[in-house]
C-alpha cells in the first residue's frame, strides 16, 4: 500500500548547497524545468517522496496550524476586499448594502483611475523588460561563464544580499543618488558631461522605473540563474559538435531551455511592480501616480469600499498582464 513513487526535482547538483529554493520562483521553476528537461508529467517535479506511516490524521494535524493561519491572514482578507468593494460607503466606513457604484465611479469619465492604472501598467511592462535585458546576461555570466560552482554561488550571493534589506531604505537611497545635488549629478558635472544638474533624475517617472528595476531585478536573475545552472550541458555540447555557432547555440538551445525561468522572472517582476507603493511615493515624489498610493489615500479618507474596488481592479489588471505574458511565451514557442 505504498504511494506511487514520485521523482525528485532535479539531480542533486554537486557543490550547490540547498540554498537555491530559498528564493522566490525557484519552486515553480524546478517544476516547469523538470517537466521540460526530463519530459516528466507536469507537476511531478515538485513532489517529495512520501514518508512511511502517512495516516490522514497525522497529515491533518501537521496541516492545521499553517492552514488556519493562511485562512485567517491571507485568504479571508483577500476575499473581504472583493466583498467590501460591493458595499456602500458611509462617512465613517461602509454599510453592508450592495452597490456597484464603487466600480462605476472608477469607470466614470471624471475618474483618473484608468489613466493611473495605464501608467502603472506601462511602467511595470518597461520595468519587466529592462529587468530581463539586464538580468539575463548576469544570470548567464554566473551560471555558464564562471566555471567554478563555488565562485558562481559566492558572486550570486553578493548580488542577492541587497534583496534582504528594506525596500524602503533601498528606495530612499536613490534620493541622495539622483537628486539635483546628488551623486550622479555631481559626478557627471565633475567629469564635464553636463554643466547644469539634471532635474529629471529624481521625482520623475524615470526615477521610479530605475528604482523599481534595482529593487526587483533579482526576482528575474534568480530563476534564470538556477535554470541555467541546472541545464543539461550535453545538449549544448551536442549542438556545438554539430557545428552550430555560439550565437546559434544560444538562440536555438539555451534560450528555449530557459524559457520557464524567464517567464517566472517576468511574472514576479510585473506583479510586484504593479502593486508597488513605497517606491512611487519616495522616488516619484507624488508627481507619479500609482494604485497603491490611491488606495492609501482612500483609506486615510475612510473611503474603504472605493479603496477595495480599486484594489480589486488592480488584481484583475495584474491577472490580465500575467495571462498576456504567458500567451506571449506560448506564441514564441510555436515560431
Amino acid at each position: 500500500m505504498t504511494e506511487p513513487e514520485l521523482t525528485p526535482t532535479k539531480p542533486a547538483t554537486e557543490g550547490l548547497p540547498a540554498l537555491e529554493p530559498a528564493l522566490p520562483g525557484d519552486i515553480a521553476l524546478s517544476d516547469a524545468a523538470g517537466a521540460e528537461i526530463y519530459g516528466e508529467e507536469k507537476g511531478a517535479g515538485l513532489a517529495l517522496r512520501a514518508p512511511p506511516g502517512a495516516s490522514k490524521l497525522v497529515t491533518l494535524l501537521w496541516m492545521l496550524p499553517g492552514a488556519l493561519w493562511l485562512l485567517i491572514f491571507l485568504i479571508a482578507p483577500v476575499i473581504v476586499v472583493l466583498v467590501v468593494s460591493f458595499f456602500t460607503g458611509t462617512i465613517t466606513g461602509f454599510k453592508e448594502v450592495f452597490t456597484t457604484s464603487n466600480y462605476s465611479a472608477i469607470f466614470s469619465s471624471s475618474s483618473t483611475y484608468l489613466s493611473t492604472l495605464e501608467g502603472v501598467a506601462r511602467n511595470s511592462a518597461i520595468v519587466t523588460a529592462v529587468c530581463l535585458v539586464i538580468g539575463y546576461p548576469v544570470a548567464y555570466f554566473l551560471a555558464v561563464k564562471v566555471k567554478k560552482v563555488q565562485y558562481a554561488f559566492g558572486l550570486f550571493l553578493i548580488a542577492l544580499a541587497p534583496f534582504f534589506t528594506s525596500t524602503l531604505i533601498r528606495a530612499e537611497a536613490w534620493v541622495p543618488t539622483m537628486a539635483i545635488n546628488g551623486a550622479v549629478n555631481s559626478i557627471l558635472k565633475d567629469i564635464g558631461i553636463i554643466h547644469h544638474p539634471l532635474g529629471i533624475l529624481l521625482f520623475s517617472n524615470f526615477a521610479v522605473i530605475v528604482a523599481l528595476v534595482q529593487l526587483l531585478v533579482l526576482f528575474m536573475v534568480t530563476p534564470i540563474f538556477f535554470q541555467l545552472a541546472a541545464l543539461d550541458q550535453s545538449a549544448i555540447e551536442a549542438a556545438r559538435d554539430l557545428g552550430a555557432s555560439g550565437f546559434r547555440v544560444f538562440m536555438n538551445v539555451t534560450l528555449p531551455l530557459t524559457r520557464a525561468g524567464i517567464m517566472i522572472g517576468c511574472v514576479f517582476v510585473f506583479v510586484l511592480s504593479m502593486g508597488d507603493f513605497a517606491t512611487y511615493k519616495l522616488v516619484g515624489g507624488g508627481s507619479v501616480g500609482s494604485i497603491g498610493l490611491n488606495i492609501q489615500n482612500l483609506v486615510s479618507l475612510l473611503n474603504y469600499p472605493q479603496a477595495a474596488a480599486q484594489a480589486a481592479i488592480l488584481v484583475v489588471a495584474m491577472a490580465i498582464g500575467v495571462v498576456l505574458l504567458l500567451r506571449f511565451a506560448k506564441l514564441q514557442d510555436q515560431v
Partner: protein
Amino acid sequence: MSQQLRERLSKIGLGVWFAAFLVFLYGPVLVMLVLSLQSEKGGSGFPAVGLPSGYWYNYLTGPNSSAIRSAVVVSLVLALIVGVIGGALALSLIMAYRRMSRRTATILLYVVLLALMTPGILLGLGMILWWKLLGLSPSLYPAGLGVHVVWALPFGFLVMLSIFNRYDVAVEEAARDLGASVMQTFTRVTLPIIWGGVFGAALFAFTLSWNEFERTLLVSTTNTLPLEIYGELTSAALQPNLYALGVITTFGTILIVFLMLIAVALMVRRTARTQAAAFQTDEEAVTLAEQARAAPALEGA
C-alpha cells in the same frame, strides 16, 4: 576570429556587465554610506561636508532619536516572534506537504505563492476591513503579526522544500521498520537532520519581518522601525541620521543573511554526510533500533 578568442571576449564582456550590475545594486547604498559619515553641518546631498565623522551615528543614540530607538525595540520583538512562528509553520506545512496527494499539494503550493504575490497594500487593506467586519480594531498584534508571518511563510516553505529535496526518506522507513513510532521517528530521526532548514526558515522570517513595510502600514497603530523611517522620510527634511540608520540596517541585515546561508550550507553538507554514513554502515540503523527500544514509554498506538 578563433573560437577560443571569441569565448574569451564574451566572458570578459559579460564580466564587465556583471561588475556594472553590482555598481547599480550597491551604488545607492554606498552614496548613503558616504553621506552618513558627514559632520554636524552635513546635509542630504553633495558636496559631502566634514568627512569622515561619526556624528550622525552618535545622533542615533541621542535624545532626538528616542522614537527611532523605541521603534527598534518594537520591530525586534515582532521579528523574533515572527521568526519563531514562521519557522514552526514552515516546518509543519512541509511535513503535511510531503504526505499529501498531489492535487492537495498543488493547491497548498498555489496558496503559498499567493502569499508571495499579493500586493502588500492590498493585504493590509483586506486585513483592516476583515477586522472591521469582525468588530475588532486592527493593531500590531495579532493583525500585524498575522500578515508578517504570511509574508515570511513562502520563503520558509521554499527553504524547507529545498532541504527535503535532498533528504532520503529511507532513514524514516528504516526507523519505522525498526519499531519507532511516528512521533519518535519525527523527533529522533527527521528533526535532527532538518533542523538547520527550520533555523534558516526562522531567520528568513526574522529578516523579512524586520524590513516589512507595506503590509504593516495600514494595519499597525504602533510604529515599527520601517514605519518610523517612513514617517520621518515623508514628514521632515532629509537628514544624514536617516542615512546612518539605513547603513546600519542594510549591513546588519546582510550580515545576518550571510551567517544564515553559511549555517544552512554547513547543515546541508552534514545532512548528506550523515545519510551517506547511514547507508554505508549498519551502525546508524542499530542506534536507531536501540533508541526505539530504550523508550517504550513513548511508543504510540
